């Protein structure tokens, strides 16, 4: 009855081109790929210096930013007690709704929904913050200082005023205005030093809009007709700290805003260098790399460990519950190495590196028992010649099935590295591959089903599949293989089939080329220039929490692209965004 029948199995292709069936990640097709030689292949951006910045509205802190901000605020306010209080606040922080991706939001910073659950969670968090901060005498004394313990009560009121202003300065990322100080002082309406009243005042500060939202009203008028304003020094400090740390400014940055040094060229540069050199910068780049490369999508490797076919497939490498996180760390270590450790590390290095970052024996085993890395010294080299670049790392290859997923691998390359705008089709047909009988390789089965000449699937899968097939040298656990083992659900080995990794495709405006390995494809991706442009686009999405606007962000994007093209370094790119013209200004929407 239906035009496209749904078949049941663990593999899937989509026709027409499209989404997914079953409980697998959606695998989209695309409406059309740029034709060969098309100008749509973005390898550079047009810069119009006269273009007005993209308007920026009120933004709430992401869940990650909120967590970092709370913990860093505690470290500033009550350093000796910060760890214990943070532990107490872990539950209310966890209750804040996740920033869930989907639709147009492919970075968590883009998720700006606000519901009752958010405000409920903010309320609970604020109450917990206030209660914990003053919950015992040690903490109260640490927060209030000498005025809390001296013999006189004459200074109690000033003591409360002072602590409200101090906590407010940290949480609001600027000094409280007088009306704000009055408002929060009014919450503390008890005589003397009252713990409950103090906890309420602290709670209120933690629920306030200047803490939960990034409010940039700007200072002087630059172009009133377009509502463009220079950021105030404190707003600039905030923008810098959330850019580099995903958190609020530390005392040094607040001080630089207060004493004016942040508005000097030298002072600004010194702060940028300091912020990027701080350990907190790595959590930001980790968040970016993780989202860019979709590391969250690495499945729970051990989930099917009890299935006979998967157990037989994995053999001695049966995943433990910890393996997934270790594989993600492996990729994050590689990215961090070329971002921070290697002077002048480049984007190209990510795609050509043969260094190994396996810290544990189970990861090392997947890599052919490569020597372990100690996490600090120079990493050893991979022992397998196939391990070239980030695309050859297990986290980018592995799933928890007994068969590879070339379509998912291909879609990742297209979407995240080449910025192919793969659109979901209007009409959808989805086909799941039947369980293998052992007569065909995964590649052969997918090709037969998705690339039949003249079929509706063919248009998309001709572009998607080769980018996945070329990685068939790696099995479903990311191990190098020379043949494909096919298992029945019972765990019985049905066949051992020869693999074919040779593909013909094009990644740039040139003619089709032949690739036989991930290493070759990775080099071609870099040579195409597209990954550099795509990287710049993704970073703008991540750090500004919005999609790039090619007409208004052209200068910024081109600047970033040039920093990661050629010999440009990753560290220079991450830092350089703070020197882009628009970084110090805000354009307010009507």
């Amino acid at each position, binding site marked *: 009855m239906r035009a496209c029948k749904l078949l049941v199995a663990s593999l899937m292709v989509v026709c027409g081109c499209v989404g997914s069936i079953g409980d697998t990640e959606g695998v989209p097709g695309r409406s059309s790929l740029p034709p060969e030689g098309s100008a749509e292949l973005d390898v550079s951006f047009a810069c119009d210096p006269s273009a007005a910045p993209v308007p920026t509205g009120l933004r709430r802190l992401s869940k990650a930013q909120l967590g970092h901000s709370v913990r860093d605020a505690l470290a500033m306010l009550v350093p000796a007690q910060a760890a214990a209080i943070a532990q107490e606040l872990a539950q209310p922080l966890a209750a804040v709704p996740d920033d869930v991706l989907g639709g147009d939001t492919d970075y968590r910073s883009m998720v700006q929904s*606000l519901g009752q659950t958010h405000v409920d969670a903010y309320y609970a968090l604020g109450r917990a913050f206030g209660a914990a901060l003053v919950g015992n005498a040690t903490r109260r004394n640490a927060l209030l200082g000498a005025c809390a313990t001296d013999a006189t009560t004459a200074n109690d009121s000033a003591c409360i005023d002072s602590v409200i202003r101090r906590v407010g300065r940290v949480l609001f990322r600027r000094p409280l205005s007088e009306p704000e100080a009055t408002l929060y002082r009014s919450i503390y309406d008890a005589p003397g030093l009252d713990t*409950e009243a103090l906890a309420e005042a602290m709670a209120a500060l933690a*629920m306030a809009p200047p803490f939960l939202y990034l409010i940039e009203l700007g200072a002087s008028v630059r172009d009133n007709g377009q509502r463009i304003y220079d950021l105030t020094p404190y707003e600039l400090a905030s923008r810098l700290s959330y850019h580099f740390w995903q958190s609020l400014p530390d005392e040094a940055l607040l001080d630089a805003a207060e004493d004016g040094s942040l508005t000097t060229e030298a002072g600004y540069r010194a702060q940028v260098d300091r912020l990027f050199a701080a350990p907190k910068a790595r959590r930001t780049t980790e968040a970016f790399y993780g989202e860019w490369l979709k590391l969250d999508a690495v499945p729970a490797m051990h989930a099917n460990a009890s299935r006979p076919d998967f157990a037989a497939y994995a053999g001695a490498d049966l995943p433990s519950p910890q393996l997934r996180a270790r594989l993600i760390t492996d990729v994050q270590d590689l990215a961090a190495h070329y971002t921070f450790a290697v002077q002048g590390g480049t984007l190209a290095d990510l795609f050509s590196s043969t260094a190994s970052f396996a810290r544990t024996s189970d990861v090392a085993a997947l890599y052919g028992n490569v020597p372990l890395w100690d996490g600090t010294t120079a990493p050893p080299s991979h022992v397998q010649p196939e391990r070239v670049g980030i695309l050859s790392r297990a986290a980018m290859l592995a799933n928890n099935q007994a068969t590879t997923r070339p379509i998912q691998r291909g879609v990742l390359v297209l979407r995240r590295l080449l910025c192919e705008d793969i659109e979901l089709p209007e009409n959808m047909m*989805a086909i799941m591959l039947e369980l293998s009988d052992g007569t065909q390789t995964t590649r052969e089965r997918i090709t037969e089903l998705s690339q039949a000449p003249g079929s509706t699937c063919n248009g998309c899968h001709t572009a998607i599949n080769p980018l996945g097939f070329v990685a068939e040298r790696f099995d479903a656990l990311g191990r190098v293989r020379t043949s494909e083992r096919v298992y029945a659900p019972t765990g019985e080995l049905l066949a051992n089939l020869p693999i074919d990794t040779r593909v013909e495709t094009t990644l740039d405006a040139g003619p089709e080329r032949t690739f036989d390995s991930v290493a070759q494809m990775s080099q071609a991706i870099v040579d195409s220039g597209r990954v550099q442009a795509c990287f710049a686009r993704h970073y703008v999405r991540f750090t500004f929490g919005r999609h790039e606007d090619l007409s208004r962000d052209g200068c910024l994007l081109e600047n970033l692209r040039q920093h990661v093209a050629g010999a440009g370094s990753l560290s220079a790119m991450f830092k350089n965004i703070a020197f882009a013209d628009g970084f110090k200004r805000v354009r307010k929407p009507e």
Partner: protein
Amino acid sequence: MTNLLKLNRRHFLMGSGGLALAIPTLTSLLPRKVAAQAAVQKRLVAMCTDHGGVFPSNMYPAMPGGAQSTTLYAASGNLPRHDVRFGNLSSTINGADRVISNCLRAPASRFSESLVDKMSVMTGFDITTYLGHNRGAFMGNYAANDQGVELRGIWYPTIDQVVGHASGFNLSPVRTPTINVAKHYGDGSDPAFSQALDLYLQPVQPTDRLQPLLDLIATDAQPSSRPPQRLVQRVYDHYRGLTTGAFGDAGRLSREDRDRLTRHMDFLNAIEARMGVQLECGDVPAYGDTDYTVEQLRMAVDLIAIALMCGASNVAAITVPGEQFAQDANYTNWHEQIAHNGGGPEDEADPEYQRTNYRAHQLFFAEVFVRLAEHLNVDEAPGVTFLDNSLLYWTMESGRETHTNWAQPVVTAGSAGGFFHTGRFIDYRNPQSPIASGVLFNQFLANALQSMGVAPADYNTHMARAQPEQAAAGMKGYGAVLWHPDDFWSEYDIRRDIWPERYYRDADDLLKAWAVGA
């Protein structure tokens, strides 16, 4: 404002495996305040199990002798006549069980004949496009789906949100407009929910844990000398002051900024309103807060019953994976073997896997649906039970075949205060239709909303926002209006032959055979 809803109670033990919970039963000890209200407090509980694919032969009883029929649509042009058939719902005793069908079976000790009389079993509610996996369709948000690509941008708040926030629905302040006990629904795993949440709320986090339910019905601790409302009011003052210029140049806020701050203030107001509600729901056992098992779902059902009866909320949603209720161990991969191979199409399904599939749903029916209905089937006022004033409905992620959403089964309990007939088996499927299509699931949802006192003019606003063209064209009901591209059922023109527009235009109408006023 303080509103004290007091629930005195007598305990009875109900449970298994050593688990027992005391919940209220006796009419004479139930809250006078609720009973004394001039208007009836209604309650809505929506339930959904994953996948579906329970074949009609296992899901439904045979249409009884003496069944009636009434015409929904006369034949018109090439459109066939459409009648609804219905008859009395009856049960038999088989061993220790009371049985309506293979799937609708529960221990007779709990599943009383009285409850059967308060149920309806219905088939023939269709969603006219392809959703595949979905997480909110059972309550009207079709956007959160995996395969219905075109629907993803057409989000409607789920009806628990609509009801929970309808003016005049909660006759007394509640702690939460909705209770959300869910593995999938509303868990934020889809932007369709995130967007819907911009307007509507789920104060009890979608939870697969018990603690939020326990918190919901917990008796307030010793009242503080510092009323918490005051803190919320001061925080509110800061948000409001931003919009009025008390704390800076409000002129630099955009319209969108102001809307956002206003929304935040609305949510603060909701928190403040909740603070006025004090409950005395009785002694609640201290459960461990671990992931739901079937045992703990029983506890969750008990806690929901308490919450509904003592006024913590008047709306609840429950969803669980079918596999959670598996009674057989004949599979290694539930999704592939049971939900797909066992869930259809009917002429291709593995009979053994179909049995495993319907038995899992049967256990949900017995342990969740019946358990909750029986808990609520105690007097709220003389001669009228909580259940009588409620609408409990259970449907599935898919209909008679996994991944398709036509012929959705709907099992109800309660008459929503006399709004619906009960004790009926109602078949809206049209044998004259090439795919035995029925009426729209949107119409079912619209009827559910109306039974809770939500007027069409109120819920129609969501179509006006989400699908203005369809609203302007006179489409009604609740939920997205979308026909699947015609080639899905390659032999038919869906618009003309299967679900012509008249079904949508009439989707606010009360359902004949089910609604009393139809």
